[in-house]
């Protein structure tokens, strides 16, 4: 077990190196034009561009140039020296400032979507074919078909006073938990819901089909033949098995929103989190923040993949960690 974890952590570091290579390729190699100028942003002076070109090794060419460029980018990203040239701010410290909002959004939405997803999926499977199942299926399909940006705007329009009519909810913004817990909660309710809707629909559907598959498993028939109650069969045998794939899904999705993947929700509600920071820099075509956030997001997914695998081994004893 210990050896397994050490090996996995080592593998994880290799993946992170590869991830940094992808970031390098995306921002330096793949696009056309002069990378130094691109990174310097719209307001750059020739002196700026020259200094960036030197700092990132973009004046080196060929095979060694490739490694020098990649390495200097990695160094900049990991030593927290990457600077947004559009406004001379440090990317890493900006990301750090966004963490509380992003974490608040992700954790709350995660709890909502996991809870409701499991509830909705279970009801839907247990009542398969009946009215409640059909209604849930219909709502789930609608939920996964709504564009998040639009859903957010609609909720703001109807519930947050954008119409000039009653404002039941604050119109965006983030209040730190430490300054006012109630306002923190109140401000996050709509964003949580907006972000959770898609996932509730999706998890509900996946869980429903998992449960319906599991119900036909031989071990469920055995449980029934033992004379267990329906409730116990459902909870101990059916749900337990059906939830294992959901845990995997949740790990990845949760990592993704923690890593700034909730970028649309954050921009619609003006929550100054990591995703919002990335969204701001799109408008100004300011690339260093995007580099930083992309790498930061991938880091979360890579770390959570390991956590998910460990959880999987715990949930399913057939999987041996070796």
């Amino acid at each position, binding site marked *: 077990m210990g050896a397994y974890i050490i090996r996995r952590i080592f593998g994880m570091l290799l993946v992170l190196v590869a991830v940094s290579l992808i970031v390098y390729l995306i921002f330096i190699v793949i696009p056309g034009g002069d990378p130094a100028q691109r990174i310097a942003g719209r307001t750059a002076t020739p002196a700026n561009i020259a200094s960036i070109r030197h700092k990132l090794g973009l004046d080196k060419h060929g095979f060694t140039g490739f490694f020098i460029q990649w390495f200097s980018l990695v160094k900049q990203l990991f030593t927290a020296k990457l600077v947004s040239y559009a406004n001379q701010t440090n990317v890493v410290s900006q990301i750090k400032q966004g963490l509380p909002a992003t974490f608040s959004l992700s954790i709350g939405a995660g709890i909502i979507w996991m809870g409701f997803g499991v509830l909705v999926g279970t009801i839907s499977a247990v009542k398969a074919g009946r009215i409640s199942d059909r209604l849930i299926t219909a709502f789930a399909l609608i939920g996964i078909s709504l564009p998040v940006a*639009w859903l957010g705007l609609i909720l703001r329009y109807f519930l947050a006073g954008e119409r000039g009519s009653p404002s039941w909810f604050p119109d965006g913004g983030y209040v730190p938990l430490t300054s006012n817990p109630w306002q923190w909660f109140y401000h996050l309710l709509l964003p949580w819901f907006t972000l959770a809707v898609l996932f509730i629909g999706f998890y509900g559907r996946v869980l429903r089909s998992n449960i319906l598959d599991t119900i036909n498993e031989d071990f469920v028939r055995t449980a029934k033949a033992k004379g267990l109650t329906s409730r116990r069969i459902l909870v101990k045998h059916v749900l337990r098995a059906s939830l294992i794939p959901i845990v995997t899904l949740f790990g990845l999705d949760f990592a993704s929103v923690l890593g700034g993947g909730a970028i649309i929700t954050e921009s619609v509600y003006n929550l100054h989190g990591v995703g919002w920071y990335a969204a701001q820099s799109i408008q100004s075509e300011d690339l260093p923040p995007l580099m930083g956030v992309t790498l930061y997001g991938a880091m979360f997914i890579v770390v959570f993949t390991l956590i998910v695998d460990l959880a999987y081994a715990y949930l399913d004893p057939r999987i041996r960690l070796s």
Partner: protein
Amino acid sequence: MATTGQEEFTLDTAAELAAEEGGAKAIQGKSPWAIAGRRLRRNYVALSFLGVFVLVVVCCLLAPLYASHVSHLGENDTNSGGVVTVHGQPVHVISQGGTKIVNGQPKIVFGGIPIGPQWGAAGGQYILGADELGRDIGTRLLFGGRNSLFIGVTAAAISTALSVILALLAGYFGGLVDWVISRFFDLIWAFPVVLLGIALGTALSVNGFHHGFHLFGVFIGLNLSGSSLWITILVIAFVFIPYIGRPLRGQVLALRNREFVEAATAQGAGSVRIMFTELLPNIASSVLVLFTLIIANAILTEVGLSFLGAGVRLPNPSWGTMIGEGSDKLSTAPGLSLFPGIAIAITVLAINVFGDGLRDALDPRAKIRIEHG
């Protein structure tokens, strides 16, 4: 006949048993496609939503007709100083500021608010209202739909095609090829979809994409300007590759060791032939289902990217850019964001419901994990 009462929850052993005990034999002799076709024909909900999708596509294709005969405004035609006749009264497309006498009282009217939906009161003009430049939302909605649908379908097609090829290569050759392709999938998978999309979209939009080489004086490669629709298409196609490639690779891997592949190998069939004539038909139903589901997701991703400004470039309309443009005019002109959102929701819902029916008919286990945050 004693029919048992309703159970607390139905353990559907009956259906399973029935299939085992002879139900399966009753449909012997029909190909899986014929069975799927029959199931789909019976699924009226799925079929009617396919109808809805076709209707949306037809409407969007007729956009030029709408522009020239109904709204009399092209997709990018501005009309900010214009006046239209509503119920015989002249109305400014963009309201003029000033004071107005209402019931004998002077009232201040704010300017700059675009005209709202007229629903035909202005003789076909501004049926869904105007944006702040006086452009016709209805026209832009139809043209934007053309872009959004084109991007969604094309990106899904490219993504599916690439994934199928990668999955076939990985599953068929195994070993190092499989390792490299799987790690490639893992790497793309390691990025949040929207984040990878905007990173690529933004980086490429600055100077475009210009890579390729000259062979005998012929340029082979891609030369795309930063504002090309193809940038968005390729970015979306790229980010979805592992979402289709991973499940398909698993299927190919499982098929690889089946007897019919060995038989084909024994008959001397080449690798390419086995991949495309033996393996591909066996994963075709999953490919079709995944393709349908990816179209829906590609359209939603386009919306997300364009909303954030990393997708379709202005002034080109797309449903995503339209929502984005309207987002800061929500209180004065909600229609700007509202209508494209409804259009997207209807279209994507239609694809999802149809895709669901297709999946039930063809490959009930196909699933796809996507987030749009």
